[in-house]
């Protein structure tokens, strides 16, 4: 599978040779990664995306964190903070957190399934190029792993003030983070585009 490609960072034309599995091709001029071959890409991406969806549901439904302070117990869900921000007159920030940590990751996973499942069965779903293009843009704005770091920092901050009880949603969220990372790591978009290109 050798093809001509222009480097997206310096525009140099070059030919990508047939690569062995897991190898990557870099631009000879600027060093940008042009293409990385991923073995068994579609199956692995699908498996991780399904896993991710399950943990996504769990992370959003189960209790997330609870705070115990002087006889009071304050229990929260994942979206509690987002709703609070909205109530306190910061709808923009609230929407941003909602998009980057809930909606975009969900759309990313749903879109991936929509495109990849039919491709596995050698069919191209309606509007697949548009969907795949959209999720490529959206992926940049999914920030589940950064939210995880935020949780860690918040827990350290509160540790001296009150007792924090982690809920099952927290563990689901950690699993979701790994599933999303693994799905992205196994997705070979070059291959998907090539398959989609042949179907048109």
């Amino acid at each position, binding site marked *: 599978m050798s093809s001509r490609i222009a480097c997206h960072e310096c525009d140099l034309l070059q*030919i990508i040779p047939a690569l062995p599995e897991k190898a990557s091709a870099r631009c000879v001029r600027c060093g940008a990664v042009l293409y990385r071959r991923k073995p068994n890409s579609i199956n692995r991406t699908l498996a991780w995306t399904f896993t991710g969806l399950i943990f996504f549901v769990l992370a959003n439904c189960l209790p997330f964190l609870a705070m115990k302070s002087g006889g009071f117990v304050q229990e929260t869900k994942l979206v509690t903070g987002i709703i609070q921000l909205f109530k306190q007159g910061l709808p923009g920030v609230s929407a941003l957190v909602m998009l980057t940590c809930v909606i975009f990751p969900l759309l990313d996973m749903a879109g991936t399934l929509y495109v990849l499942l039919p491709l596995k069965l050698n069919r191209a779903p309606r509007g697949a190029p548009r969907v795949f293009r959209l999720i490529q843009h959206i992926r940049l704005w999914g920030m589940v792993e950064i939210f995880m770091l935020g949780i860690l920092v918040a827990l350290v901050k509160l540790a001296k003030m009150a007792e924090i009880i982690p809920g099952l949603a927290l563990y689901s969220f950690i699993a979701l983070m790994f599933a999303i990372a693994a799905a992205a790591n196994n997705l070979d978009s070059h291959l998907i585009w090539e398959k989609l290109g042949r179907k048109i």
Partner: protein
Amino acid sequence: MNPTSLTARKANLVSCHVCHLLSRAATTHCPRCGSSLHQRKVNSIARTWALLIAACICYIPANVLPMTISSTLGSKQTDTIMSGVIYFIHSGSWEIALVIFIASIFVPLIKMFILAFLLISIHFRIRWKPRDRTRLYRLTEAVGRWSMVDVYVVTILVGLVHLGALANVDAGPAAFYFAAVVVITMFAAESFDPRLIWDVMEQ
């Protein structure tokens, strides 16, 4: 690899920025993925400057205004980003202090400096180390999103510490400006076209 020492533009081709398919230069939309085609990102320099200036303006209230307003049993305390860092140093968790300092103060600042430097270097057609300048761009692109961590910390605190008179945390106005800095600098990095660095080398 087979270098042809020819750019797509010189070969009269245009590369799709979404799916990387090469098309003839006059094509307006990519035949494979449907996105609109341009030799270079449209208005890259002007757009990046505008976003960069907007981010610089938001950076000031983001650091001066309070990020959180916490009240415990009647006593009120406002925290800026920097006072949050200092709090963590005093309470002995210097790793967390370092994380917040790097993500919230250092990264946005260095990102704005690097983008300004790249824009200026293109304006004056500087031919100095294009490979390293491309690498700098790649760095700003990869690292910028991590600044969002402080916005998330506020979100979690606000949701969790909500016990009325006993203990309460409210988000301050800086949360808005800080989120704006992160989003705007991410858009700025996206609108910058690193190929402009190399176009100077071609001439």
